[in-house]
């Protein structure tokens, strides 16, 4: 195996995966991936379509549990605690490990309600005034406050695609997660909206551990400090982003980032 050559451990990891395998029925989608995700950088997962990067991302907050045929082996820890252990409550896990999806998916409710929903179900707000504070803070962090502060009670689905995606990021932030997983968050957005989301990711770095799956290698180079290259269910190479892009150690990584396949 080629993984020994890659630098997969980091100091003080927020989440770490060891020999994770994912099966969909008989088909193996992830073939033993070990990786550490740090608190103070953005980690990008890149790779061609169908390489398993989204599948692996979804194991980090157990969203694969909703797929009846999916089976996960190996160990994934959050702050050293195995998230697949029976003692781990999956609802609480998903509050601590938030997720932003490929297609903006705001609830068909008001902007305010979209943000307030998470804090409400987790009992984070002590009354209406407190909730107002949480909503404003979350929308500010999501870079959306100035655009929507006068129409908080309009439907979230009436916003533009880019605004909807920032609303979804704000919704994830509102429950004060420790990790935010982003599954190709810009693939449905235009370049200007994409630039805004990337800017937002920069601002959120350090406060949350961020893992982003992207098709777009330039995006990975722009927003991330660590990059993992997946291919056919394998983690081929993982390292500091600038190293991966300027000096890949693996032949397959080099072929991919130079555009030979993907």
């Amino acid at each position: 195996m080629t993984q020994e050559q890659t630098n997969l451990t980091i100091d003080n990891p927020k989440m770490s995966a060891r020999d994770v395998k994912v099966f969909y029925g008989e088909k193996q989608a992830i073939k033993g991936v070990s990786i550490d995700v740090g608190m103070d950088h953005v980690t990008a997962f890149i790779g061609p379509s169908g390489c398993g990067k989204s599948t692996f991302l979804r194991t980090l907050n157990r969203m694969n549990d909703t797929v009846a045929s999916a089976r996960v082996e190996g160990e994934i820890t959050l702050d050293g605690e195995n998230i697949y252990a029976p003692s781990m409550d999956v609802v609480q896990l998903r509050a601590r490990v938030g997720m932003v999806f490929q297609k903006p998916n705001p609830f068909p409710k008001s902007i305010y309600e979209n943000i307030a929903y998470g804090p409400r179900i987790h009992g984070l707000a002590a009354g209406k005034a407190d909730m107002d504070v949480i909503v404003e803070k979350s929308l500010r962090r999501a870079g959306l406050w100035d655009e929507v502060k006068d129409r908080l009670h309009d439907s979230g689905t009436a916003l533009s695609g880019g605004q909807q995606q920032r609303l979804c990021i704000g919704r994830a932030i509102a429950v004060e997660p420790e990790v935010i997983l982003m599954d190709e968050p810009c693939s449905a957005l235009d370049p200007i909206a994409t630039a805004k989301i990337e800017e937002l990711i920069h601002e959120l770095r350090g406060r949350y551990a961020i893992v982003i799956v992207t098709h777009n290698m330039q995006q990975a180079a722009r927003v991330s400090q660590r990059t993992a290259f997946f291919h056919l269910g394998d983690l081929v190479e993982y390292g500091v982003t600038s190293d991966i892009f300027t000096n890949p150690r693996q032949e397959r990584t080099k072929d991919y980032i130079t555009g030979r396949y993907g």
Partner: protein
Amino acid sequence: MSTRNPTDWKSEAMRKRIAGRYAAERRFKFAGLFAVVLSASFLAFLLVTMMGNGLRGFTRTEIALKVDFPASPLLLDPKAITDEALANANLPMVTGTVAKTALGDKADALLSPTAWINIRDAIKADPTILSRTATISVPASTGLDLAAKSKGSPEMEAEVARLKQQGVLSTGFNFGFLTASDGTDPTQVGIWGAFKGSLLTMLVTLILSFPVGVATALYLEEYARKNWWTDIIEVSINNLAAVPSIIFGLLGLSIFLNLAHLPRSAALVGGMTLALMTMPVIVIAGRNAIKSVPPSIRDAALGIGASPVQVVFQHVLPLALPGILTGTIIGMARALGETAPLLMIGMRAFIATPPGGITDPATVLPVQIFLWSDEVSKGFVEKTSAAIIVLLAFLLAMNGLAIYLRNKFETRW
């Protein structure tokens, strides 16, 4: 590889193909228009004939009968008017005598056989009329009623002309039809008993079938694992929705009446039987509505840590509700028009008093229509049509409510 000639878009064959395509389109349009016009004309025919017959059913011909109480053979003490005294006063005979004085020898054929009830009620309302001559409106007989409103026998037509000249004949809206119940005299029957019976039956059906149906749909869609066991349940539910309604009547008869000994002819049993029939419809519509909720909404809710129950009740159910309501209304409308299963559980009995509760003997609108259409008396023909109008109005009101609720809960994306 052989070289092919470039396509000639202007060739004769191409022109014909285009013409054929347009012709097919015109034929299809015409066929659709024809179908729409045909069904619309059937509907118009139904409405016109029903309104023509039925609206007359809402009116009643009355005769202003002059009653000279002091001169009548009525033996009643104005100070002691009790139900018992009235019952012993032989009012039917007295009414006959009084009518002969006022209207001539053929009075028996002119007045409804139950005209004495109006006189009794007038005395009860105001006993002082016993000491003077009063004019009391009493219903005309069926024959006279028909002659006054449309076409009757020649003798009756002549009587109508004579009474009209006297100025004692009037045709007006029959409030009794909306407040009375079934009876033997078509001039005195009303729809209220059957209407209330339908209302109570539908209430029982809704209360039983809606929560159970929605819960079943939610469980099957959101919780149940997909295995052969749930496949069997799904096939069974689909089959149940297609079972002829009379079979449900037999089921109700054997379980609710013979096994559980619930009261016969009651709205409770009728509602339970119809609930059995409605539930599969609600389950199927509910499952389809739940399936059509976008998975991205589930992901969004799960992704911020909503529990499965919260996802279902705070996101999936509200979004599926318009579809569920549509299915429920279709099922309820079918149940409202259902006769066969109710006949099996005894709801075809002659019931002359409106049901006081869900365990009292009751009948429902379609069964009432069925019973009246079977009556020999000619006066029931227009009552049957009038009852159909009431049933359709009930249905329309129910559908209107459903459309209102659906629009209210509909989410704009």
